[in-house]
């Protein structure tokens, strides 16, 4: 064993790693919010009972879920410049990709969440004179969202881990920051090890939080 971590000073970390960490967090948050919004719309489409809405939503979700994320990242990186007519940069491409990709996974969670709300709640909404949009917005979705919060957050932890795959298109994320620092000091092994530690600490703490939340929600029910 010949590991030497002494080069990893705060100066090195702040000049290489912090920028990447911020991007990873931003990417996770944007993709989470965007993914949940689009995912909820997809779930509502799939539960609408109208074939014109059900079929495209189902096709989208199933296609996204059966292709490796790396391949989806490469597809968007290839297609976005063709559609826009100009290059967009790896970071923006990653933001669009993750939002649309995660929407497929969040939509399955939201679909299960909406289906977990008793049917009587829908009938009650209609009975007091609400229309579809009001019933969904005021009665069904808040309950579905609360029931599924732990699962949504668990998916977000997976999302945070998956952001490391922007490696395929060279975007500057947490892993890339460590990698560049390691290359500059010719200490790749040490930086990968520390990177693993940082991911482990972040993801494990988040999963502990989710577990506590799960217990609290279980009491409310």
């Amino acid at each position, binding site marked *: 064993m010949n590991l030497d971590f002494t080069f990893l000073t705060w100066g090195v970390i702040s000049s290489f790693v912090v920028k990447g960490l911020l991007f990873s967090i931003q990417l996770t948050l944007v993709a989470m919010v965007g993914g949940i919004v689009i995912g909820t719309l997809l779930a509502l489409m799939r539960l609408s009972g109208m074939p014109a809405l059900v079929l495209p939503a189902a096709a989208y979700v199933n296609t996204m879920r059966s292709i490796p994320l790396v391949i989806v990242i490469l597809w968007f990186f290839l297609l976005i410049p063709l559609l826009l007519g100009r290059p967009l940069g790896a970071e923006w491409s990653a933001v669009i990709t993750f939002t649309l990709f995660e929407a497929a996974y969040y939509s399955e969670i939201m679909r299960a969440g909406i289906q977990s709300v008793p049917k009587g709640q829908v009938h009650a909404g209609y009975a007091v004179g609400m229309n579809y949009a009001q019933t969904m917005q005021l009665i069904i979705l808040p309950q579905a969202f609360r029931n599924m919060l732990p699962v949504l957050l668990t998916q977000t932890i997976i999302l945070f881990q998956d952001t490391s795959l922007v490696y395929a298109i060279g975007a500057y994320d947490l892993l890339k920051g460590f990698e560049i620092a390691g290359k500059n000091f010719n200490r790749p092994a040490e930086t990968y090890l520390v990177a693993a530690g940082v991911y482990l600490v972040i*993801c494990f703490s988040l999963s502990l939080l989710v577990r506590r939340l799960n217990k609290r929600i279980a009491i409310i029910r």
Partner: protein
Amino acid sequence: MAMDWGVFCKEITSGDQVASCWGSGADVTYLNWLLKAWGWTLSVAALALIVALVVGALVGILRTTPNRKLALFGEVWTELFRNIPLLVQIFLWYHVLPTMFKSLQAIPSFVLVVFALGLFTSARISEQVKAGILSLPKGQRHAGLAVGLTLPQTYRYVLLPMAFRIVIPPLTSESMNIVKNSSVAFAVSIAELTSFYLQAGEETSRNIEMLLAVTVTYFISAFAVNRVMAAVEKRVRVPGMIGGR
């Protein structure tokens, strides 16, 4: 933007069209290369799945044993392999372990990736196996012990035959995930489908055709795994249970 599928019939070094699309000897077409890359993807996925099933089942069982130390070991294992991104784990196996232990440098990167993907997935499988065992009524375990079976015998003859059948549906999706996740092996230059796309797309500038072919190939692989697991599920289903019919 017209598609040009003829690119798959080109020889990869000279760029000459091969009439049959099938190279011979040292002449290799892009189609040959694609199929070879598919072989690598399937090999990585299949071997990693074996590692994941064996280790995942073992760790999952440990987590349900009455022995505190073994259970704790299982929990730590699961958290460790579940909370580090797969790509980082692959780098740990490929860059870090050989630096720390010189003797590992002789091991081919293919084997390292198989272990990285296998152990990453073992954490997820241990979670399913644990849930499967815990979903059985407690009386099953007590009954096994009461008729004089040892704890290993109780697991072998009473708990596991039921638990494994219960966890087949989640294992199906893990098996499909392992095919998809094998794509991350591109990062350490395993010659699998994603690497094929990155190289062949660059060489031919026919990125869309190449990526479409690779995507369809992944699609077929994951679907095939799904069908195989469905057949397994049908074969081993328990009469009298939901889905057992």
